[in-house]
């Protein structure tokens, strides 16, 4: 008893083949879309690889690119087969390959689904990469004279301006590191000597932030230095001051940016998986309907198409039996010399 059988006459077969051919072209475009999304994601990661300590994992965009390429190629092949299916001579040369092709398609669809799930899960390792990278970035902010790190200041400043964020978790992260280079500190002044003496590592720590943390929406000109000292500025209370600097941490901002991108890509990959599944089903019907002509000599006769030749349970037991027999076959081969020697 076949699964979901459908009766086909010539007209229905032709219509099915045309529809599936049309859908295959959409599937090719979908493959191109997946490829371009993988490329876009890769470029975005490269753009900010400095902030992630050049440590970010390119596994997901590479996988997307690979999936896109495979999808394009199998869909072009499927489209060609569909186009030829209306001509019995041409179809005869494709017939033997179709079964393996369909099994491969099913496997590919499962892999696409796994990719989509991965897109949603990638957020977690990215969180750790970003935290580490930003912390190091902030540490190297002052090293504008060290080769290899001289652009860190500019990168961080531009990032804080673009993503409207300050520091790793919030602006107080800047209070804990020295972000003013020693080249610009007057070591003979009392104030500098006090600050350096006030901590174990001899770092010049201050309760101030770089200018890129400033919020343009603030009604007041930006207060960057002596932020915790209420008396240093007129009519200023640093507990109630909301709009002066960006409140958000850059790790959160970058994570939501990349997270949003990955969610969109994941949703699109799920849609592409559904499209691929439907063309695979269509192809299976085309294949089965053309293989079971009521009168093999007459291409215009009626036929029956199905999803699976037997029911799901029977197909499953069939596959299990096949695998067992393959396994036994290997065992018998190994045991043959032993059998001979015994006898």
């Amino acid at each position, binding site marked *: 008893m076949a699964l979901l059988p459908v009766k086909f006459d010539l007209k229905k077969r032709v219509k099915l083949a045309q529809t599936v051919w049309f859908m295959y072209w959409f599937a090719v475009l979908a493959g191109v879309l997946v490829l371009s999304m993988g490329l876009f994601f890769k470029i975005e990661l490269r753009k900010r690889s400095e902030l992630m300590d050049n440590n970010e994992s390119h596994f997901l965009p590479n996988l997307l690119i690979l999936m896109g390429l495979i999808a394009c190629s199998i869909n072009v092949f499927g489209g060609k087969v569909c186009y030829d299916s209306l001509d019995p001579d041409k179809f005869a040369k494709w017939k033997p390959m179709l079964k393996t092709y369909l099994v491969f398609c099913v496997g590919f669809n499962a892999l696409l689904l796994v990719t989509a799930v991965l897109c949603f899960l990638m957020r977690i390792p990215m969180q750790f990469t970003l935290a580490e990278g930003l912390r190091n970035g902030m540490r190297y902010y002052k090293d*504008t004279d060290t080769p290899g790190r001289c652009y860190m200041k500019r990168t961080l400043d531009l990032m804080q301006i673009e993503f409207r964020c300050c520091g790793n978790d919030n602006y107080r992260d800047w209070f804990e590191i020295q972000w003013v280079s020693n080249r610009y500190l007057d070591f003979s002044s009392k104030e500098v000597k006090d600050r350096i003496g006030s901590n174990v590592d001899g770092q010049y720590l201050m309760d101030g932030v*770089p*200018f890129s943390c400033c919020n*343009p929406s603030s009604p007041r000109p930006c207060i960057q230095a002596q932020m915790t000292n209420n008396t240093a500025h007129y*009519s200023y209370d640093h507990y109630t001051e909301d709009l002066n600097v960006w409140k958000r941490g850059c790790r959160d901002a970058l994570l939501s940016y990349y997270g949003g991108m990955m969610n969109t890509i994941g949703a699109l990959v799920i849609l592409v998986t559904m499209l691929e599944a439907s063309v695979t089903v269509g192809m299976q019907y085309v294949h089965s309907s053309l293989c079971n002509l009521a009168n093999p000599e007459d291409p215009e006769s009626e036929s029956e198409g199905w999803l699976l030749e037997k029911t799901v349970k029977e197909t499953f037991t069939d596959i299990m039996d096949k695998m067992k027999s393959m396994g036994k076959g290997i065992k018998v081969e190994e045991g043959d010399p032993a059998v001979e020697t015994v006898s």
Partner: protein
Amino acid sequence: MLLKITFTQQRRVRLAQGLWLMSWLAVMSGAFIFCLGVYLKTELLRRAEVMDNTEIHMVPNILMMVGLVSIGTNWVATRVCQDSLDASRFPRWKLLLMAWFAVAMLLCCLLLAVVVLSYALQGRLEESLKVGLRNGIRFYKDTDVPGRCFQKETIDRLQMEFRCCGNNNFKDWFEVQWVSNRYLDFTSKDVKDRIRSNVDGRYLLDGVPFSCCNPASPRPCLQYHLTDNSAHYSYDYQAEELNLYSRGCRQALTDYYMEMMNSTGPGVLSVILIQMSVLVSLRYLQTAVEGATALEDPEGESVGYLLEKGVKETFEDVKANVLDILKFAQVDPSAAEGSPGAEDAEKPADNTTEKRWEGGGCVSAFFCFGCVSWVVASRAPFGF
């Protein structure tokens, strides 16, 4: 006859087909011009807060109008092409074609005017930006005054996005009080000194807002006491280049808009070319088909031309027709009183109606071109 070409039936058919395709191409280029106008207008409107007047909006407005009219005109051309090979349907387009030529010439002239205008209006744009930015900087501190409370945010974002500071350069900020009185401690000595140091009693300082800071500087940004070398360690005001943005916002914005308009120049010129070729081809098609229908054998050869007589003679004809039209208009009110006189006057008028259309079309085209040139000349700065 000016530039005549003989057309066989096959050549006429080929011309009609080629022209049909080219007309659809012209429709799409009209849509392209419209989109270009919309894009330019959106970009100008985004920064409307720092512009004083809207004269520069003439360029995108003309582009949008020309785009829309060009879509309609070229669509009409496709219909004419389709009907041109059908002898029964072509004659109804006769009168409309004269008006069509006039409109097409006008569109080409307007597009040329746009290209010229986009260069000519640069001076006006700079003036407008100068005044707009000066006001923006003056009202920077008024974040509590309704109507001006967003100036600070606008100017800050503008300076950060275009990497510029002040109107001409960062020193413009030294001449304006950009810190609101709400945040000044009037009991402190420093504030009292600064307020007394100038006639208007303003709190002026040699400092700039944070949005002038250049992220590419190796040193954390120095915003205050910029002219005082001793206020900062290892600092020389004259030698410091990267600390703040050195460009003025007026220059930055003018460069941005000029670059945008210059890059659209080649596109507009190619659209003019397409429109002119459609115009010339349609004229040839019209004259060839009319010639063919006048022959005994409609499938035989006919002659297509641009102008029936030479340029000078056509001009004389047009002048005569224009004077006729004016006389006809003058005669008309008095003709209503004397009907026999009116009948006599109308009869010769009927024969020359078609010539009047032709003349009227040419006249209106020249008139409009003259108008546009006058507009351009009056708007351009004196040195142009």
